[in-house]
């Protein structure tokens, strides 16, 4: 792998962000709106609920951490969609850039853009509503890492789906976090879910994160065994997503989909 080639993918995104406010704004605008909306909701809930329970870390924290996962996924897919929108697949895939270099470039881009979102999120949530991620204790580090790795895995898998199904499939990718959120126990314990949903929830690394963080806000402790399992599971999903992308790429080269991508001819 050549860092210079990976750097080219990152530099492309920097050029695009630098020249386009419409790309910069979404990095923090939706996060800011979520902070405001859920911040006021939790403030209201704190006012009407019995004293002793703080909704800020329980609800606002959960919303923002889920938002973080979504932003990581979108950071990866946005960089990929730039090649879809500018019809640049031939330029990219007929070059010496390897699949691993290309995907690494997308991931690095996702890291950069999601860190911007995370910084804005922390600044706004702490200054306006007094939420500090430090209140979760050291468990916040593996928690963020799990959400981060799973977000990247979703982004890579989503990009592979769009590569396989064509440009219009991007509308299947954007709502992926929303589709997963009921299963990921963001706001409620896994035990709340009906029996048929629980195995799905247990297969999702974020479920363990939110269970642990909920335990902390309820005065208990994080389950580090579960968090370690979630970390391993996230890495497994990441490897599976990379393998899925490689498989889809091979199918596209065999069937000629890359060369006639805009035709959206799934075969």
């Amino acid at each position, binding site marked *: 792998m*050549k860092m*210079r*080639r990976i*750097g*080219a993918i990152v*530099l*492309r995104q920097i*050029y*695009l962000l630098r*020249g*386009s406010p419409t790309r910069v704004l979404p990095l923090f605008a939706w996060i800011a709106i979520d902070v405001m909306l859920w911040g006021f909701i939790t403030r209201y809930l704190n006012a009407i609920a019995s004293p002793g329970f703080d909704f800020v870390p329980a609800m606002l924290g959960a919303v923002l951490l889920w938002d973080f996962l979504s932003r990581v996924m979108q950071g990866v897919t946005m960089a990929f969609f*730039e090649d879809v929108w*500018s*019809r*640049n*697949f*031939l*330029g*990219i*895939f*007929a*070059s*010496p*850039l*390897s699949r691993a270099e290309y995907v690494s470039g997308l991931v690095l881009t996702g890291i950069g853009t999601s860190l911007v979102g995370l910084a804005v999120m922390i600044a706004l949530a702490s200054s306006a509503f007094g939420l500090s991620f430090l209140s979760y204790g050291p468990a916040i580090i593996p928690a963020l890492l799990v959400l981060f790795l799973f977000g990247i895995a979703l982004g890579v898998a989503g990009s592979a789906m769009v590569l396989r199904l064509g440009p219009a499939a991007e509308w299947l990718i954007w709502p992926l976090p929303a589709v997963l959120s009921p299963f990921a126990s963001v706001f409620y314990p896994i035990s709340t879910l009906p029996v048929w949903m629980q195995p799905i929830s247990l297969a999702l690394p974020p479920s363990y994160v939110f269970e642990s963080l909920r335990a902390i806000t309820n005065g208990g402790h994080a389950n580090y065994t579960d968090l370690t399992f979630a970390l391993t599971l996230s890495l497994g999903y990441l490897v599976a997503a990379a393998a899925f992308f490689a498989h889809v790429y091979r199918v596209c*080269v*065999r*069937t*000629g989909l*890359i*060369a006639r991508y805009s035709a959206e001819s799934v*075969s």
Partner: protein
Amino acid sequence: MWRAQRRHGREGPPPLTEAATPQPALAVEHLSKAFDGRIVVNDVSFSLEPGEIVGLVGLNGAGKTTTINMILGVLAPSSGSVTIAGLDLADHREAALGVVNFSAVYAPLPGNLTVAQNLRIFGMIYDVPNLTDRIGEMIDMFDLARYRDTRCGLLSSGEQTRVSLAKALLNKPRLLLLDEPTASIDPSTADTIRGHIRDYAAREKGAVLWTSHNMYEVAAVCTRMMLLSRGRILIEGDPRTLPTEHGAASLEDLFIGLSREPDERASS
């Protein structure tokens, strides 16, 4: 990898000056491609020597672009092999594509980036040394100085073609694939571009595979041409002598006659 290392003792092709017997810039052997049982390219074999400019002509749908896509590694052949500067494309994709470049009307550079930005990004992807200087050379060569900071999407189609050609020559490719490079360019600029490509082939010993529907252009630029029809190479030779050899008045007459022949054979 093992095969190339045995041949060259390292990853990547040898410099032309080192090779005792120069490797063909491109060797295509028994290349075929079928989509759902429909054969589009049928057992095509040819090679390009360093410094050679070869025309690949044929009717629309003859299999030219499919052949080029297989040489560029974005389409897997059903059978056959592509070897670029001694490197089997299937086994050494990155190394082989590092010494290739291309320009095609259907593959424009991203319109939301400027000329200089596009050249920098592709220069990094092709790992071009002294990139800033090389970008300057390409911008001068294709008369793009005034568009350096203009987004490619705002350029005319002719200007976009010049940017695409600048990108195609950035890495001084050992094999250059040009798919109708002058299709949307005025005659004067087209003539200048033909001159640049000829100079490049002579100076850098780069081989050029040039597809065109302009028979005048093929005769003016190419030292050899191949006529592809229904996925097969029908004839091959010097475009200046081929018409006489086949009893045609001109290259265009020969093209029309041979391209229609399979239809006439089929209907008779």
